[in-house]
């Protein structure tokens, strides 16, 4: 995989997630381009590169998600990073069985990756909440937050259909194994 293409696309996705993607808000959830990109990388990159790519995207996502704990603003690097890594594991384990260039496959990969990432995120934050002086960044129950994350995963999976098509147009810049074989 071309790391320069990865870094450039990750920067664009992060920037758009923080600004314009709110236009596409649906059912209170804003689709995430970073989630779509992670699924795209997990589907197409070499296995080891896919693991690292998803971990890095999760880390960048953590560093873009401030939370307030005990009145202090803090970026907790880890919940999304670990979640995206586990999500990548799920996608990597099934990607041989699907037509990777299909937009539907991209949507299912996004859904699977984000559902697992959401589970890990909620679990880690719940664990944090059990620690002494621990706080969680949501109001209500963990189950409620998990439900909202599931909605977010579904909305992002729907949004990944056109995003996958768009990323597919740039396929030869990525230097994935499949694009090398084509050449």
């Amino acid at each position, binding site marked *: 995989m071309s790391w320069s293409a990865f870094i450039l696309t990750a920067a664009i996705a992060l920037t758009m997630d923080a*600004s314009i993607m709110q236009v596409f808000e649906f059912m209170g959830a804003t689709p995430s381009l970073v989630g779509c990109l992670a699924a795209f990388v997990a589907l197409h990159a070499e296995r080891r590169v896919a693991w690292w790519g998803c971990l890095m995207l999760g880390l960048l996502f953590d560093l873009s998600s401030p939370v307030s704990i005990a009145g202090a603003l803090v970026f907790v*690097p*880890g919940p999304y990073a670990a979640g995206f890594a586990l999500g990548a594991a799920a996608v990597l384990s099934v990607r041989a069985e699907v037509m990777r260039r299909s937009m539907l496959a991209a949507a299912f990969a996004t859904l699977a990756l984000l559902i697992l990432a959401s589970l890990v995120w909620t679990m*880690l934050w719940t664990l944090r909440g059990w620690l002494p002086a621990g706080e969680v960044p949501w109001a209500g129950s963990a189950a409620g*937050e998990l439900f909202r994350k599931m909605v977010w995963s579904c909305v992002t999976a729907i949004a990944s259909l056109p995003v996958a098509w768009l990323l597919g147009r740039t396929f030869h810049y990525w230097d994935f194994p499949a694009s090398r074989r084509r050449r």
Partner: protein
Amino acid sequence: MMRGSQGPGKIFIVAVTAAVALSLLPVSLLRPWTNDLSALLWIPLRPPAHGLTALRHWLRPPRDETAVRDSQLLLEDRDRFRALWHGERLRAEELSQRLAQVERASKLDRGGVPVEPVMVSITGRGAGSSERFLALNAGIRDGVQKGDPAVIGGDLLIGRVVDDPAETSCWLAPLGDASTGRLDVYIAPADRPEAPPSEGVIAQLRPDARGMLVGEVDSTGRVDVGDIVRLADPTWKRAAQGMRVGVVRAVRASDRNPLRKVMEVECGAETDRLRQVTLKVEVNG
């Protein structure tokens, strides 16, 4: 488990374990470096994010921009002065209560702190599914301090600056965010918005999962849908006192306690559609 070139590799497993460990570290160990790391990451990304935010507002303009400009300004002035009046009245009430005690008045007067309004743009927001924090393009250089309240339209409270701001940026936690915690408010009837706090109903609200503020009041307390909710919380800065928090949207009997009513308050502004807010910055010296 996959092995060799098929597996993630030992270094990767160590990295994921480190990520899990970092997730559970105390805030005091994370804050010194993660905030700087995030700020560094966003240095090149903030300008394009600001531009795209402007594009988003162009695509989905805030509703109040459609209103007539002059009348809007007049309404904003009216609301601002009304809020100041409420704030001062709260202060006067508080002082009179204290004066009623035997303490010396000179010890009680905290002194009016001059407040300077700073108009700031929203340059982005936190990522994730519950992205409610707003990034603002004002910081220490503009005199912004932790806890400074943000308003729109003169007296409509949006939230407050969370944590110490950076040199040129800060984060705003909207009222509906879980980090707001409990809010002390008083409720003025819709038909008498100028009713003094002593005639209003005192309540404590907390944000729920939908971004609404919920709280309980005595069933004898007269609270109706449409009543106006104003802040009277000593944990917030003085500049925020008396500001409009929102409007009562629902009142129903409490399932747990028949002597109490549950009310739901809708925050007055949709933070998703905001383009600019006014920070009420305390002027020191």
